């Protein structure tokens, strides 16, 4: 009979406490792997959100803040960029293309973004994928709207449905006199675009013609037909995506925007700003990883305590093993093997719990946070973590193993209980 089989049968005989211990280890391992999965998933998801945009320009604030509100629709701009400045910078020889973005209004829980049709050509995600329509097409009429996949799914919208834009982000005032019509529904991208209502930049101007200082002007509102004939050039935008002709021109253009004399502006490289963001959240990530590692350590120490507390009851078993020729080292090795078997079972259970949990919460994470976690296999790092858990179990079980060694050395073949 091998030591492993002996350990297995011994564990089986104490199945109730063993199952609880394995469950505790499994839960802690699932938590640890889950935190890592979320961390890498969030990073990958953020990194995949914008591709092939060289610079993002906005009013001067922080680079992370500009990135968050312009690309991820998180937070708000502190100031706007004047349309004159945008036109001036767009006309610079280094600039190949520029797409203006205007944020600030909303529809239900979703943000409304004003932009130009060029957005559908220039916005790229996940390494160069372009936006595609699941149904309909980009806006043609002034009051056409294109909605993201999550907006359509959550609100049950289909092509041709009317849509009312609310003024501001948490306002009860609506532009209900000027309803939009859904002209297109985008395919799912796994980016914040899924949760955005896109309308024309001129439409943003149009719905605010009768508004001043956050409130509607008194008197009759301008009819849609009249608005369609008006010159709706915006006075300001929130931000702009910029592509340069040559990558060598990125930094000179960034410097030029940051030193723009007419108004305080800021240009950021999305990748670098993301890096800055990770540095900021890195502390929290490390803390979260640390806490989950402590949970694993606690579960393993609990297992060691379980083995230790059962030693006295097992003195007879140890004496019998000694009588048939087992040395104290074999007794100690039996306990270490039991601990490693429990940890290995916990690790496998933890991985199973992780994937079970992922299957359950993926749709919710996607819907609530736009976080698309891949259901990929365990990474080399994950497998290393599992191996470390088993090795740590062997390490902590040395404490009861040493005690068992001493006990069996002292007891010999004398059955104490």
């Amino acid at each position, binding site marked *: 009979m091998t030591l492993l089989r002996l350990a297995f049968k011994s564990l089986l005989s104490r199945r109730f406490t063993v199952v609880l211990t394995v469950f505790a280890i499994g839960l802690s391992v699932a938590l640890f792997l889950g935190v890592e999965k979320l961390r890498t998933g969030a990073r990958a998801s953020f990194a995949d959100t914008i591709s092939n945009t060289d610079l993002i320009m906005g009013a001067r604030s922080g680079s992370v803040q500009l990135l968050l509100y312009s690309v991820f629709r998180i937070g708000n701009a502190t100031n706007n960029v004047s349309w004159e400045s945008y036109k001036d910078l767009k006309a610079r020889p280094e600039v190949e293309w520029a797409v203006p973005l205007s944020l600030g209004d909303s529809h239900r829980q979703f943000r409304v973004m004003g932009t130009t049709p060029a957005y559908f050509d220039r916005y790229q995600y996940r390494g160069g994928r372009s936006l595609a329509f699941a149904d309909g097409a980009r806006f043609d009429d002034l009051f056409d709207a294109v909605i993201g996949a999550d907006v359509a799914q959550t609100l049950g919208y289909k092509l041709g449905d009317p849509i009312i834009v609310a003024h501001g982000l948490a306002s009860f005032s609506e532009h209900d006199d000027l309803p939009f019509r859904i002209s297109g529904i985008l395919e799912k991208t796994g980016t914040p675009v899924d949760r955005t209502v896109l309308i024309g930049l001129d439409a943003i101007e149009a719905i605010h013609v009768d508004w001043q200082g956050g409130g509607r002007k008194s008197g009759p509102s301008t009819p849609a037909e009249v608005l369609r004939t008006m010159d709706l050039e915006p006075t300001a935008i929130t931000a702009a995506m910029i592509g340069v002709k040559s990558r060598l021109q990125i930094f000179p253009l960034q410097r030029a925007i940051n030193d723009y004399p007419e108004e305080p502006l800021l240009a950021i490289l999305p990748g670098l700003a993301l890096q800055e963001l990770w540095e900021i959240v890195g502390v929290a990530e490390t803390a979260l990883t640390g806490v989950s590692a402590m949970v694993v350590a606690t579960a393993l120490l609990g297992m060691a305590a379980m083995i230790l507390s059962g030693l006295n009851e097992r003195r007879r*078993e140890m004496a019998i*093993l000694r009588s*048939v020729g087992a040395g104290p080292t074999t007794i100690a090795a039996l306990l270490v093997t039991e601990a490693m078997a429990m940890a290995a079972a916990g690790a496998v259970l933890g991985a199973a719990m992780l994937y079970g949990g992922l299957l359950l919460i993926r749709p919710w994470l996607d819907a609530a946070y736009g976080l698309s976690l891949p259901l990929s296999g365990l990474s080399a790092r994950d497998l290393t973590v599992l191996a470390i858990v088993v090795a740590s179990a062997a390490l902590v079980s040395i404490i009861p193993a040493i005690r068992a060694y001493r006990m069996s050395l002292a007891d010999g073949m004398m059955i104490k209980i």
Partner: protein
Amino acid sequence: MSSNRPVEGPNALDMLGTRFLWPGGRFGLSVDAFSVASSERVFLHGPSGSGKSTLLSLISGIVAPVAGEIRLQDHALTGQRPAVRDRLRAEQTGVIFQMFNLVPYLTPLDNILLPLRFAPDRRKRCLDAKQAALDLTRALDLPDAAVLSSPASALSVGQQQRVAVARAMIGHPPLIIADEPTSALDMDARAAFMDLLFKQTDTSGAALLMVSHDLSLSDRFDRAIALNDIAQPLHGNAA
């Protein structure tokens, strides 16, 4: 009562000038000379605290004497590393306790095969270990179904003792050490158990060293010895 069985080969056990003190030096044992011949049945008795457990610990190599010599057949137990003594115990002896002899979570069969895990030579002697175990249990009137499937803890005390005999006998170790093996059995079961034990030791040619308080059993042995006759307790720094 002298033995009619032929005495062949070296003694199963030899102790010569053996002295031992437990750590702390509060109690010990001195054995000038004690031997158990091959196939001999020896009955050892003595009052509680006279050092029977210490003697068995010395014979099985669990503890090492500070002086003298202990040999199991022609293998010197003294002067060996603990791991070698463990191996010699596994190869040269079979042990039967008074009760709770078995690892409760293993089947009787696994319990019987357990010593072979630590005694490769005994395993070699068995050829087919499982068959050898079943031959033993059948000879000991244990049903196959109980031996193969049920956990050891499900057996009666008498059945457990018979499984313990099978475990001690498997692979034919030259010396069987029985420590009060009948104390948990009633009168009838005791006699039946002793019959089975003698039959098995006769079959395998093993020597039997049995420690017991029950002097009524001593007539059936080749020799009955009081521990005081072969060993003197040591106290303090007497070693």
